[in-house]
């Protein structure tokens, strides 16, 4: 045990004496929260919208007025047909279109089902989802008021996302950010700190000594576990202070799951470092092999459902994908372990496999 403690102390000293890296690691979560928070605007205003109204009547006029009155929308035109829509969408002068059927008032009076088509520019999926939500809400309210007899919901809104038919609505960014930051702090830093010792030759000194490889690794990663927790808390506090992102579920559970994901990332870092001969290789491997999937294949930036199926399949082996479900569940839905145990189990399984892979490679020693 004592050699490990000495090792933890040494690793902590490395970390504390490398001021620049430490500053980056601590500022990173804060800067990321601010960048994502301010850059990924979730409220959309002044959406240029067209209402296609082949047979204007009192009911459709009421709907048009509601759209025009909302500061969310800017009613660009009322068209008799959908003929112009394609070119308007393409040039971007219109981002949403509400296509009404004929004889709206008469159908409402009869209590018929009303087939309304809602077209949305989905080239930016998140914004598209938000715009779709706004328009649907206006439609529902209008319909509810237009049929005061309240004979149940008869309206049927058929929505279609243009340019990106299967997109999901926008998510809050913080859960993804937690995964992203932890991947950097845990996986990247571990990989770099182990390969650094290979490069400087100190790893040789350690491997020739009686200290076990597992103890070397345990000693090396411990400070990064602590740093990982600090990062999670920084992200949470910053997100709450600046953007009032809620935490619906248990903080304790969130930290426990983060702890699990930290270990997963560390294990990934170890696996990388056993294969990479230099810090440069390790960094590239971590960036390309871990950070990109964490950003792209986890559902953080692009909804998984909108990925092509080979990539969707690939996403199953990205730990961040499962961690994201867990963090979103806890933070946004207040979910507990009863609903999240499967993802937790998958993450735990991955962690065990990675640790086995990493330690097997290490026991072969330097050659």
């Amino acid at each position, binding site marked *: 045990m*004592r050699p490990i403690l000495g090792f933890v102390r*040494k690793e902590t000293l*490395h970390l504390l004496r490398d001021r620049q890296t430490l500053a980056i690691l601590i500022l990173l979560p804060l800067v990321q929260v601010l960048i994502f928070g301010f850059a990924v605007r979730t409220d959309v205003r002044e959406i240029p919208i067209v209402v296609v109204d082949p047979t204007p009547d009192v009911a459709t006029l009421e709907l048009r007025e509601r759209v025009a009155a909302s500061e969310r929308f800017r009613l660009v035109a009322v068209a008799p047909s959908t003929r112009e829509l394609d070119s308007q969408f393409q040039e971007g002068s219109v981002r949403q279109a509400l296509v009404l059927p004929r004889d709206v008032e008469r159908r409402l009076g009869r209590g018929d089902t009303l087939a309304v088509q809602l077209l949305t520019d989905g080239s930016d999926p998140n914004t598209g989802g938000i715009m779709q939500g706004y328009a649907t809400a206006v439609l529902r309210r209008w319909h509810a008021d237009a049929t005061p007899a309240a004979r149940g919901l008869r309206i049927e809104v058929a929505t279609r996302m243009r340019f990106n038919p299967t997109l999901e609505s926008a998510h809050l960014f913080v859960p993804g950010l937690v995964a992203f930051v932890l991947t950097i702090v845990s996986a990247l830093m571990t990989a770099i700190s182990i390969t650094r010792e290979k490069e400087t*030759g100190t790893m040789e*000194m350690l491997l*020739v*000594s*009686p*200290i076990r490889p597992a103890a070397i690794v345990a000693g090396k990663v411990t400070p990064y576990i602590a740093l990982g927790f600090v990062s999670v808390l920084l992200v949470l506090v910053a997100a709450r202070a600046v953007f009032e992102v809620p935490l619906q579920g248990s903080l304790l559970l969130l930290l426990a799951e983060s702890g699990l994901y930290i270990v997963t990332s560390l294990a990934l870092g170890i696996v990388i470092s056993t294969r990479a001969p230099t810090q440069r290789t390790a960094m590239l491997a971590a960036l390309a092999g871990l950070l990109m999937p964490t950003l792209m294949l986890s559902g953080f930036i692009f909804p998984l459902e909108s990925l092509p199926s080979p990539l969707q399949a690939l996403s199953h082996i990205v730990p961040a994908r499962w961690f994201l479900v867990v963090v979103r569940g806890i933070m946004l839905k207040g979910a507990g372990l009863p609903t999240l145990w499967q993802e937790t189990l998958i993450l735990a399984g991955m962690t065990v496999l990675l640790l086995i892979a990493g330690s097997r490679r290490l026991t072969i020693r330097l*050659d």
Partner: protein
Amino acid sequence: MSGPAIDARALTRRFGTFTAVDGISFQVERGEVFGFLGANGAGKTTAMRMLIGLLAPSSGSATVAGYDVATQAEQVRRRIGYMSQRFSLYEDLTVRENITLFGGIYGLSNRDIAERTGQILSRIGLQRAARELVREIPLGWKQQLAFCVALLHRPAVVFLDEPTGGVDPITRRRFWELIYEAGAEGTSVLVTTHYLDEAEYCNRISIMMDGAIAAMGTPSDVRRGLGAATLDEVFLRLTRPGAAV
């Protein structure tokens, strides 16, 4: 420990079709300073790496401090010290922190560590620099420090891989004094070197060529065996047989 400090028997290492070390056999006695000579790529470092357990032998066997390097690596590691070609202490730790770290790794008690730290610092005259980062001290001192750290746990055998590369003549001399002191205290020393004047300081030397031992014995035996006046001459004759000397 009874028997030789190092006993290599037909030790061989192949990398694919290339044989880096080709069936070498030699013994190093307790307290002996044994020089490992040879041109670059002759197999010195590969042989040393097998003896310290960083590389598995392809065939043959070796014991170090009485333990088999292939099957009893753990016991071997407790009884050897090692200093690599590259300077390999932690540059961003202080002199004292480095000593404490390696003391802990070798399971020394805090009291032993404190005591030996004092001894080391006074032996190489580094007392004033104890709190300085290793990065800040001159190379000659770094090398001496690395050597003392390799001896910290009083190993039976210490392996030095070109320990004096890049240091000035005075420091080299000082370094060899340290090596002799270690030998006198009963530690066997296996040292690889390029400097033939250093080889003269060794109790015995072996000259490796293409993975095999071409000559072995005391420096004077080796000279006499080849009818050469100096080790330089020996070296040239062995490595360039056609060359007129």
